[in-house]
């Protein structure tokens, strides 16, 4: 950090992304960063849980055991969430919504386990925003046809088309920046507390972890999924 944060003399404040390992590809130096490592850990946890869930559901019983109950609860919650917003379109999209919900939620709360949350890297959230953007426009062209899309762009009058196009392009950027900035602010705040108040940060930062990691992470996950579902439903409906 060079001169340290705000010249306070604390040299161990650290919340940036660090390179772990560099390699050359097509003449460019690329880095495997801490984000990739944390992402890999989160993915391994999700995959392990999913494999265990699949094994459990293969020999599912009429009276569910503890683990089967938990899996059914999660799936029912996610299906209910997408069903309440998307209505009849939810059948096709609930896999995607459930996947990003679990992924973003685990990424956001991974700060509790000492990782740097992968969603505090703009590369990750922007990729999620781009996926949503592609889904919105694919479905818009599929359901409303080219004519409907052009009519939607020239909404009040054709002269408003540039503003509408800018509005469409702003959707993935605002979606991804919202998630990124929320998680990043939590990471920075916790790093400042542990770095600047390291002598008296004994037990009470746990309360802040509950707010910044659990509460804020859960809310932002919910918001990301809700907005994704709303945009896709808007793109699917034809007037």
């Amino acid at each position, binding site marked *: 950090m060079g001169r340290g944060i705000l010249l306070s003399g604390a040299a161990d404040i650290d919340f940036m992304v660090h390179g772990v390992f560099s390699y050359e590809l097509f003449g460019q130096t690329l880095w495997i960063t801490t984000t990739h490592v944390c992402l890999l850990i989160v993915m391994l946890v999700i995959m392990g849980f999913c494999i265990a869930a699949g094994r459990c559901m293969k020999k599912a019983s009429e009276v569910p055991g503890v683990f089967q109950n938990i899996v059914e609860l999660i799936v029912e919650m996610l299906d209910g969430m997408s069903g309440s917003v998307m209505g009849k379109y939810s059948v096709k999209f609930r896999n995607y919504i459930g996947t990003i919900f679990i992924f973003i939620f685990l990424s956001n709360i991974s700060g509790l386990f000492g990782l740097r949350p992968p969603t505090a890297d703009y590369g990750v959230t922007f990729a999620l925003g781009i996926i949503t953007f592609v889904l919105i426009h694919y479905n818009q062209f599929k359901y409303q046809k080219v004519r409907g899309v052009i009519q939607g762009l020239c909404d009040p009058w054709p002269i408003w088309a540039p503003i509408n196009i800018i509005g469409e392009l702003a959707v993935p950027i605002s979606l991804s920046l*919202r998630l990124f900035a929320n998680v990043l602010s939590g990471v920075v705040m916790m790093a400042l507390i542990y770095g600047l108040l390291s002598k008296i940060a004994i037990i009470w930062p746990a309360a802040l972890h509950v707010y910044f990691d659990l509460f804020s992470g859960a809310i932002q996950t919910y918001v990301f999924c809700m907005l994704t579902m709303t945009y896709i439903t808007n793109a699917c409906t034809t007037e």
Partner: protein
Amino acid sequence: MEFNTNFILGCSAIGAGLAVIAGIGPGIGQGIAAGHAAAAVGRNPGAKSDVTSTMLLGQAVAETTGLYGLLIAMLLLFVKPLMP
């Protein structure tokens, strides 16, 4: 004109402070949303969970503009785009 790096650092810090003023707007907006939600729960206590989830969603969306200011402040302080 040649500027000292310390001068640029100081100006970046002032700019970061000014950018965080963007937090006023979301603060007012979230307060209004929470107040109306409290009134709604008072009028219809049965709908408490629906009102709460709607309020949280609206507040999280309203927060975005404040977060943009925060991002600008972070960029000015830590990425230092103005440094030569």
